[in-house]
């Protein structure tokens, strides 16, 4: 009896292996690692929906070079330890490339696992600079790097014609990094830095700082910290009767900013941020937005999930163009041959480190009703 069962088991296994084997020959498998649970679950759910939607579209249109695409999803839980397990599981599933993931530290935990298995990884929301400074030839990302924002900030401030700029940060590593980056670039461009200092986050009264700022008489204030302090600054600036323009970094992109400052004080405040999906202007983006709404009934929540869609699209494009599924060939294509590929979030090219080139950051301005309006 036991022996019979054994034979039966073997036969079943062999059969399964055969079916899968034949399936592998025809199907291109792409991994997706995203936070389906945990505190970033809404981002991860969005990432999964977007990538599966795009893959379904590819398959409906006949696949890539006639081959169907299959998305293999693993949950990283937004947690580095779980990400390492998810990455290990994905490496055993014969995938050509992997998309993901969202948090920088989570991506970092999986980087070496994919690198050792020789799998192309395209991260989507991980902006920390160090991720692409490790000389991992198979690592790419569709999101901008933290230092990219400094470049865009300096350029935007210059384009708006401000010559005398005050920079204020809050001593967190992110905000100070951005402030330093912007400062050196602005100085190199011949602008005057009228003021450079840090406030203490978590306080309520910033009048002393604003009074000092006012005496420096800048054309514009560039604040690189987070939205609660930005809101307080705007509010107290208005109460002082001082209407100097103010610009913030992407950490000020939060509707609570307007709640804290009030519509009147927030009006005219500008900030840098990757565009929210509804403001993406390419035909690909519009078609994608329509398809997404048709499939799921609402617009995708944030730009970070749409960047996962772009990760899928660059991988699919690389496979289509090279007619290969080996990670080295795909990576070589992405790095050297892909130029200004029209993605869902604008033009995509990668540099030798695997970072996305070109300015993804846009300028937003708060209107009289407190809404965030994309500036042309």
């Amino acid at each position, binding site marked *: 009896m036991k022996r019979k069962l054994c034979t039966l088991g073997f036969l079943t296994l062999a059969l399964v292996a055969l079916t899968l084997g034949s399936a592998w020959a025809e199907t291109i498998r792409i991994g997706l690692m995203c936070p389906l649970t945990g505190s970033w679950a809404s981002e991860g759910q969005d990432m999964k929906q977007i990538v599966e939607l795009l893959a379904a579209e590819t398959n409906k249109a006949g696949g890539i070079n006639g081959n169907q695409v299959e998305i293999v999803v693993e949950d990283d839980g937004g947690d580095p330890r779980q990400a390492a397990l998810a990455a290990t599981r994905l490496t055993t599933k014969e995938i050509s490339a992997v998309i993901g993931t969202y948090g920088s530290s989570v991506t970092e935990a999986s980087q070496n696992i994919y690198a050792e298995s020789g799998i192309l990884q395209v991260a989507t929301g991980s902006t920390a600079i160090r991720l692409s400074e490790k000389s991992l030839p198979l690592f790419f990302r569709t999101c901008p790097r933290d230092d990219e924002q400094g470049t865009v900030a300096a350029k935007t401030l210059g384009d708006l014609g401000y010559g005398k700029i005050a920079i204020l940060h809050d001593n967190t590593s992110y905000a100070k990094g951005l402030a330093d980056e912007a400062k050196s670039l602005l100085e190199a461009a011949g602008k005057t830095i009228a003021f450079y200092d840090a406030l203490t986050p978590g306080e*309520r009264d910033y009048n002393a700082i604003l009074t000092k700022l006012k005496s420096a008489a800048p054309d514009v204030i560039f604040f690189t910290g987070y939205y609660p302090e930005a*809101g*307080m600054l705007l509010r107290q600036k208005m109460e002082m009767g001082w209407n100097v323009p103010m610009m913030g970094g992407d950490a000020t992109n939060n509707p609570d900013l307007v709640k804290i400052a009030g519509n009147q004080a927030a009006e005219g405040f500008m900030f840098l941020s990757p565009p929210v999906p509804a403001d993406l202007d390419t035909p690909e983006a519009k078609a994608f937005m329509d398809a997404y709404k048709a499939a799921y009934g609402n617009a995708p929540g944030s730009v970070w999930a749409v960047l996962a869609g772009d990760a899928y699209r660059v991988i699919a494009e690389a496979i289509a163009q090279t007619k290969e599924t080996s990670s080295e060939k795909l990576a070589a294509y992405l790095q050297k041959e892909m130029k200004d590929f029209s993605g869902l979030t604008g033009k995509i090219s990668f540099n030798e480190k695997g970072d996305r080139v070109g300015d993804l950051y846009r300028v937003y301005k708060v209107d009289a009703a407190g809404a965030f309006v994309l500036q042309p």
Partner: protein
Amino acid sequence: MEEFFQQLTNGLAVGGIYALIALGYTMVYGVLKLINFAHGDLFTIGAYLGLTLLVSMGLFDKIGPLPAVILLAVMVMILVAIIGAILERVAYRPLRQSPRLSAVVSALGASIFFQNAIMAIYSPKFLVYPHDILPKAAINVLGMDIPIMRIIMFMTSLVLMAALYFFIQKTKIGTAIRAAAIDQGAAKLMGINVDRVIMLVFCIGPALGGAAGLMVGLYYGQINFSMGWMFGLKAFTAAILGGIGNIPGAMVGGLLLGVIEAMGAAYISIAWKDAIAFCVLILILIVRPTGLLGERVAEKV
């Protein structure tokens, strides 16, 4: 020069709030020799209760801004005073005879409890008082625009502090509080109900802290569950600066700390503002270990 005066008013406005909170620390210390670490969180509770009452009762629409603010302040002060009394009964009275360290640990525990309770009830997000409920006008003094609300706020803290001072100095109950501060045993022998005096101290201190919380909420607008930590720390510093256990000392210490911070930010560095304030504190304590007014007044409350 104009900037100097502007910074002076900035410092006094913040200092008034520090002073009001510092009174709570100093009164409790005066009577019990205990640092009530939960005091900063009672301040936070004042800010949250104020918002809840404000939104749920719609007072500003019904009776106009000034009566509404007064009524709101009275309600918040009563509620926070009750919470303060319960805190004393539950967390401190059972430890009255234990070593002082036990009471300090109990105070830290109470602080953590309050902070997490506020977070659990009201969410960890920033909450915002409604805008446009208070006049936004500013008056021009010596070429400076000073918001009226700021002047009102500063005057309110002065009035509250003065009222407390006269209550302690001129009334019979105030005398009992002072007696209990000097010698609890002797006060008991004189027929003073020391337990009731301590309960009263735990009503007055938190009531003033709650009023400060409401003022911060009304004026600055933005509140969150951990705001009591920063204000509590500064107020505690102010109490030590002025001489802990001494009521005029807390007032002077609070105002002085606010002004030192503003001047440090204005003329040295904003990022080093807190460091400058604490350096001044250390220097003063080296010269006068009991704080600025610690010795001048013999009796401590």
